[in-house]
C-alpha cells in the first residue's frame, strides 16, 4: 500500500514534468511559427493548459517531498507533544481544504462537459479535457494529505521535525 501510493505520486510527478516540457514545446512552436511563417492554431492556449496540468499533477508528489511551503516558526519552537498535536491540526485542515478543492474541480469538469464549454480562444478546445488535469491532481493531493495524516498519527510525537526546505525565490 505504502509503496504503491508513493509510486502513484512519483508517476504523477513525472507526468507533471512531461507537461512542463509540453509548455516549453508549445511556447517554442508559437515563436518558431511566427519567425518561419507557419501557423499552429492555439499554441498559447495549449501552453497554458500544459502549465496548469503540470502544476496540479505535481501537487501530491511535491507534498510527499515536503516541498510545499508552510510557516514552521511555531512548529519548530514547541515541545514534541505539542508539535505533534499542532501538526495533526494542520494535516486535518489540509484534508478538509484539499477535499473541497478536489470536489469542486471534479464538478468543474463535469459542468464544462455537461454545458459543452468551449475555450474562447482560437484553439476552441472543449474545456473539460484540459481541466481533467486539475481534477486528477487535486484528487491526488486529497489522497496524499490523508495518507500524510495517517502516517503522522501512527508515528506519534517525534523529537526532530523536518525543516522546511529553503529554495523559493
Amino acid at each position: 500500500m505504502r509503496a504503491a501510493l508513493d509510486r502513484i505520486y512519483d508517476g504523477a510527478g513525472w507526468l507533471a514534468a512531461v507537461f512542463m516540457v509540453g509548455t516549453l514545446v508549445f511556447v517554442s512552436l508559437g515563436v518558431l511559427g511566427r519567425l518561419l511563417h507557419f501557423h499552429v492554431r492555439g499554441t498559447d492556449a495549449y501552453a497554458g493548459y500544459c502549465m496548469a496540468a503540470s502544476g496540479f499533477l505535481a501537487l501530491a508528489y511535491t507534498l510527499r517531498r515536503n516541498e510545499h511551503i508552510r510557516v514552521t516558526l511555531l512548529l519548530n519552537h514547541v515541545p514534541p507533544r505539542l508539535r505533534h498535536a499542532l501538526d495533526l491540526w494542520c494535516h486535518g485542515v489540509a484534508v478538509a481544504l484539499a477535499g473541497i478543492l478536489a470536489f469542486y474541480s471534479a464538478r468543474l469538469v463535469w459542468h464544462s462537459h455537461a454545458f459543452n464549454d468551449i475555450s474562447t480562444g482560437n484553439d476552441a478546445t472543449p474545456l473539460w479535457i484540459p481541466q481533467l488535469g486539475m481534477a486528477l491532481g487535486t484528487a491526488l493531493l486529497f489522497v496524499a494529505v490523508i495518507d500524510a495524516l495517517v502516517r503522522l498519527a501512527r508515528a506519534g510525537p517525534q523529537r526532530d521535525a523536518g525543516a522546511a526546505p529553503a529554495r523559493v525565490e
Partner: protein
Amino acid sequence: MSDFAITALLVAALFLLLGTGVWIGLALVGVAFVGMELFTTRPVGDAMAVTVWGSASSWTLTALPLFIWMGEILFRTRLSEDMFRGLAPWMERLPGRLLHTNIIGCAIFAAVSGSSAATCATIGKMTLPELAARGYPEGKVVGTLAGAGTLGLLIPPSIIMIVYGVTAEVSIARLFIAGVVPGLLLGALFMSYVIVWALLNPGRIPRPETRTTLAQKLSASRNLIPVVLLILAVLGSIYTGIATATEAAAFGVVGSLAVSAAQRSLTWDTFRDSLLGATRLYCMIALILAGASFLTLAMGYIGLPRHLAEWIGSLGLGQFWLLMALMVFFIVLGCFLDGISMVVLTMGVLLPTVQKAGIDLIWFGIFVVLVVEMAQITPPVGFNLFVLQGMTKRQITWIARQTLPMFYLMTAAVLLIYLVPELVTWLPRQMMSK
C-alpha cells in the same frame, strides 16, 4: 457585520492558519472560502474552481515555470566555478578585492535566474570556501553575499516580478526592464560600501595574488562568454520587443540547455534533476497562486480592497508616508512569510489604495521587489539567511548582523527611487517608444 469586524475576523483566521503551520496555499483557500461563505450569497465552490482554473492556465503565467526551469538547469552547471575564476583576476586591483566577486557574480547570475536564494547558493558555493581559504574576513564575505544575492529578485528575469505582474495586471516585460537600472544601482551601492570599508580598514583584506596580464585575465574569463550571450539574448529580445517575457523564457531554457551541453555538464541525470526540481518548485508556487487568486476574488466580493482604499484615502497620508508605512508593513510581514506569499496575499487588497494615491504600478512593482528583498535578509524568516545558514553552519542572528549594512543600503536605494522615479521608469519608457 461592520467592515472592521469582517476584516478583523478574516485576518485573525488567516494568522491562525498560517501561524499554526497550515501550508500557505491551502491556508489562503481556507480563508477565502470561509470569507465568501459568510459574507456573500454566491455559490462559493464553483466560483473557486473557475477562478483557480483561470489563473492556473493563463498564458501570461507560462513565463514562470520556464524561467524557474532555466534557473534549475544553470544551477547544475559549472557556472559558479567559471564565474569565480573569470571574475577574480579583474577584482585584484579594486579596494576590497575578491569581495567584489560576490557582488558581480550575483549580479550576473541574477540575470539568468529569477530567484535570490538560488543566486545566493550558486555564487556562495564557490566564493565562500575560496575567500575563506585566502583569509578574507568571514563576516564581510557572508554579509556581501546575502545582500548581493537579493539582486536575484531585482535584476530580471525575476520570479517575484512575474507573480506581481500577473497579480497587478501590468506588463511583465516592462517590469523586467524597469528592474535593470535599480538592480545595477543597488549592485553599485554594495560595491561602493566594500570599497569604503576596505579603505577604512586596511590590512583586513588579504594581499593580492600574483599579478596577471590582460591576456591571462581574458583567458580566465572566456568561459563566461556563453552566459553573457545568453543574458544579452534573453533581456535583449524582451527589450527590443522581439519576444514576450514567456517567449524569452522558452529561449532561455533552450539556451541554458545549450550552455550546459557545451560545458559537458548536460547528462540525463542533470536534465532529469533540473526538470523534476523545476516541476516541484513551480508546483509549490502554483498552489500559493491558486489560493491567492481565490482569496482575491473573495476579497473583491466582500469589498474589502475598495473600503481599505477609501479608508486610507481619508487619512490623507500623502504618497511618501503611505509608502513608508507599506515598507514597514512588508518588513514586519516578512518576519514570518516568504516574498511570493507576501506579494500575492497583499496585492489584491492593496492595489486600489496604491492606484488611488496616484502611484505608477510599474514603479510600485519595483518598490515592492526592493522591500521584499529587504525582508529576505531580516530574521527570523529570510530565505537568503537560511541558505547561508546551511552553507556556513553559523547562527542566523550572526549572519543577519553581518548583513545589516546591506539592509541600510537597500533602504537608501528605496529612498533613491522615490526621489528619482526616473531610475525605474526611464528604461521601460525607451522600450515603449519603439
